[in-house]
């Protein structure tokens, strides 16, 4: 048993739902108790979908267990087929139904429906959401991609590829598909099929007609791409086009596969990130300490962008994707770090607390950790929430993705000039200690704590790590002169410095000794 407060991934059948919901003309019958229907709201509330997911739940109850749950499943499959008239069906079990061992796939196939029925075996007590999505997509592709559909010679037509991996409830998948489709179009490459996002089972049957595959999210599409390579000799892309360098490398990789020229598209490189990053005001970004956690693809990309394209220092890198732990470990090693591979929220929280980064790039979980620790944060990966499905066009991939990343990572930080002004004019009412950055609107900090805390109480409240260390009045006053957004860190550093040296009282000297000790 694993004690879990929050989970990064849902169960594997939720992964299957992300595939089914992304597609058209497909219906999923899930052998499950009624509670599992909660998953509908992930799509209708978080992603704001305007249709129910194409899922029928058998919703068996305790009283059915003595009787015939198998019969219940068969009638649910038949009713769903008649009502929805899908081109193909998925049939599987959730965690509870797995224990009943009803063999939903076999039972559904015994009905001899006139459409393909894909049986899913998703071991709920071993695997998780992304694995379930990948397995489901692979099973669908394997069943539906017609072997007869081989690639025709490319002499009289533009090269074409499939765009694989975008799902429902994916982090910016909708916009990434747009951005990459546009980019490939400029290279003179057509999209044969985009899947699972927007595809029908009939579209999957045409997968073999592409020259190669573009894998946008390996967590979802790698097994399918590997099978397509084996079956249709379609090569597939390894580069994930998130960030400037990766987008360039992706263009080069794709151009080579398609045998087209990348020169024109590379020469244009219409992203503002490189110049914004080189402009003088970005100097204040230099060496900002950043902690990164997410799925493997987004975490690795974020680490690269943070270092090479924004000049940050990555102090922590990790992922909850155990299936891709190797890649994350390699990436972390390139930054001189040991990767944090865990799905234990508390372990991530402990790492952030200890490292005290100046920026957290993570999932919704890390957003909450950062909020609690009052560290700026941007979301870079699932699990995500309703605000991560913005109304505006906001891809992560390609040139526009780089623009979006620059804005969303830099905006939570204090502007460089503002940081200096705040220090210089801290006596002025607009720049008082509790003022929030002006570009973040109102002054939430001030409104939460309108009453200035007396130094003694502040010491008690701010303690914790350095419990047992007290502050002289003089040191406490000096600490108050440090801008509020670094004061917490200064306090913690000073206290840990004092604790290490077994100093019970922090004096002015201790404060500046610690500052020198921790200076980069």
């Amino acid at each position, binding site marked *: *048993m*694993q*004690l*879990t*407060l*929050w*989970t990064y*991934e*849902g*169960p594997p*059948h*939720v992964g299957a739902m992300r595939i089914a919901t992304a597609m058209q003309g497909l219906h999923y019958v899930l052998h499950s*108790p*009624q*509670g*599992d*229907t*909660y*998953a*509908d*709201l*992930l799509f*209708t*509330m*978080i992603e*704001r*979908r*305007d*249709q*129910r997911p194409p899922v*029928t*739940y*058998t*919703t*068996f*109850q*305790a009283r*059915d*267990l003595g009787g015939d749950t198998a019969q219940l499943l068969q009638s*649910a499959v038949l*009713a769903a087929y008649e*009502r929805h008239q899908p081109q193909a069906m998925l049939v599987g079990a*959730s*965690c*509870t139904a797995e*224990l*009943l061992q009803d063999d939903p796939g076999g039972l559904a196939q015994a009905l001899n429906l006139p459409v393909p029925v894909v049986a899913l075996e998703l*071991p*709920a*007590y*071993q695997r*998780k959401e992304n694995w379930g999505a990948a397995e489901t997509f692979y099973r669908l592709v394997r069943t539906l991609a017609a072997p007869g559909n081989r690639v025709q010679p490319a002499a009289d037509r533009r090269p074409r590829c499939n765009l694989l991996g975008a799902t429902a409830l994916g982090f910016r998948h909708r916009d990434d598909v747009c951005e990459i489709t546009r980019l490939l179009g400029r290279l003179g490459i057509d999209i044969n099929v985009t899947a699972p996002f927007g595809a029908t089972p009939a579209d999957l049957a045409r997968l073999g007609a592409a020259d190669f595959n573009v894998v946008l999210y390996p967590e979802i599409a790698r097994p399918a791409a590997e099978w397509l390579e084996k079956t249709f000799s379609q090569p597939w892309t390894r580069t994930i086009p998130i960030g400037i360098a990766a987008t360039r490398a992706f263009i080069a990789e794709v151009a080579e596969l398609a045998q087209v020229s990348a020169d024109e598209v590379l020469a244009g490189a219409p992203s503002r990130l490189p110049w914004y990053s080189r402009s003088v005001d970005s100097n204040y970004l230099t060496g900002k300490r950043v902690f990164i956690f997410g799925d493997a693809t987004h975490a690795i990309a974020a680490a690269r962008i943070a270092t090479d394209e924004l000049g940050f220092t990555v102090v922590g890198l990790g992922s909850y994707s155990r299936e891709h732990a190797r890649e994350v470990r390699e990436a972390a090693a390139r930054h001189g770090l040991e990767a944090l591979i865990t799905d234990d929220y508390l372990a991530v929280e402990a790492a952030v607390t200890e490292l005290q980064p100046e920026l957290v790039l993570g999932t*919704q*979980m890390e957003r*909450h950790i950062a*909020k*609690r620790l009052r560290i700026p944060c941007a979301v870079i990966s699932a699990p995500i929430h309703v605000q991560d499905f913005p109304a505006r066009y906001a891809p992560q991939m390609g040139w526009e993705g780089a623009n979006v990343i620059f804005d969303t990572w830099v905006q939570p930080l204090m502007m460089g000039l503002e940081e200096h002004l705040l220090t210089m004019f801290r006596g002025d009412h607009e720049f008082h200690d509790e003022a929030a950055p002006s570009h973040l609107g109102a002054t939430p900090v001030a409104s939460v704590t309108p009453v200035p805390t007396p130094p003694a109480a502040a010491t008690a409240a701010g303690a914790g790590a350095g419990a047992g260390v007290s502050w002289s009045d003089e040191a406490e006053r000096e600490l108050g002169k440090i801008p509020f957004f670094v004061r917490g860190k200064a306090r913690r550093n000073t206290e840990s410095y004092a604790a290490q040296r077994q100093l019970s009282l922090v004096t002015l000297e201790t404060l500046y000794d610690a500052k020198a000790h921790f200076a980069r």
Partner: protein
Amino acid sequence: MSVERGQRAVFCGLTGIVWLHRKIQGAFFLVVGSRTCAHLIQSAAGVMIFAEPRFATAIIEERDLAGMSDANAELDRVVARLLEGRSDIKLLFLVGSCPSEVIKLDLSRAAQRLSARFAPTVRVLNYSGSGIETTFTQGEDACLASLVPTLPADEQPGLLVVGSLADVVEAQLQRLLVQMGIPSVQFLPPRHAERLPGIGSHTRYLLAQPFLADTARALEERGARRIAAPMPYGAEGTTFWLEAAAEAFAVDRRRLEELIAAPRQRAQRAVAAHRSLLAGKRVFFFPDSQLEVPLARFLTRELSMVAVEIATPYLHRGHLDRELALLPPGSRIIEGPGVDAQLDRCRAEQPDLVVCGMGLANPLEAEGLATKWSIELMFAPIQGYEQAGDLAELFARPLVRRTRLAV
């Protein structure tokens, strides 16, 4: 009145943890289940918590099923790890789930064992929130029922108000009941795990939620007797509810009238403010929280709405007898699920407002139907005089919004 059977589209009883963990301070809810259970609670909560979470899941893994590890030993280990460094936990609920029920993990024995181990610091209880046994609000019923045998004996006459209420509502109702002169007024669930109400054969209990069948049974076993009353929704419902309490404790009629005249008038005024918009509007209830019948009574009687269908996951005819009598004759009441058939009827009826779960709300909005998602009725303070206007407003808001939008 008819019974339907088909695909359900409701939460399981685990969802109750979302509001119960905020209500009973010092209590912690440990679901013994699967990753799905953990994902459900975190998704239903809609938030990931700011403070120390007061619920968690012990996720059953392959090796627990394969018998490679003793599930009981594993559970003990997990509980020990949880309680380590969490001195704020005084009451631990082990909450059964679909998988734990199917593998027949005996959580009542586990609770006894762990209670003995961690007494007197922590008491350990158990109940089932599984979706094969419970629907949505039945989780609270199961939780409260598990608390009843642990309540201290108290043979003094008194009133016990049963069903979780927002603190502000609890305080208002308590004030009124105490001012009536009722000797002792207590609430279940208590606000703190260590302050349990007493109970005995002179206890009269009054339900503040309509879904508490098992809790009521457990209370009767301890000798308490129910005061039949409609739910305290709206000016009228709250009056009936308070009158029932007054009658049970022989409170002077004039005294009661004096006490409630002003708040009742406030409530009537507040509700009336929404009547012009809602009167004559047709409302359709999908089965969700078991609040459907009392809510339909409030909407039809105090706001002159027309209830075209009142579907509820489970109809407790005994507890709802007074509610049912107050509904317009011939109301279409459906007990049980069958989401596809209900959707068909809903589309055919084209009601002005649909009360439904979160999975259905946006799809129905996209079809042009106005919706009110029902889970908000569990979280928002809606009972009592001072909330009557807010309750009406919850139903008015989706319609008001439509009159405002020009996109």
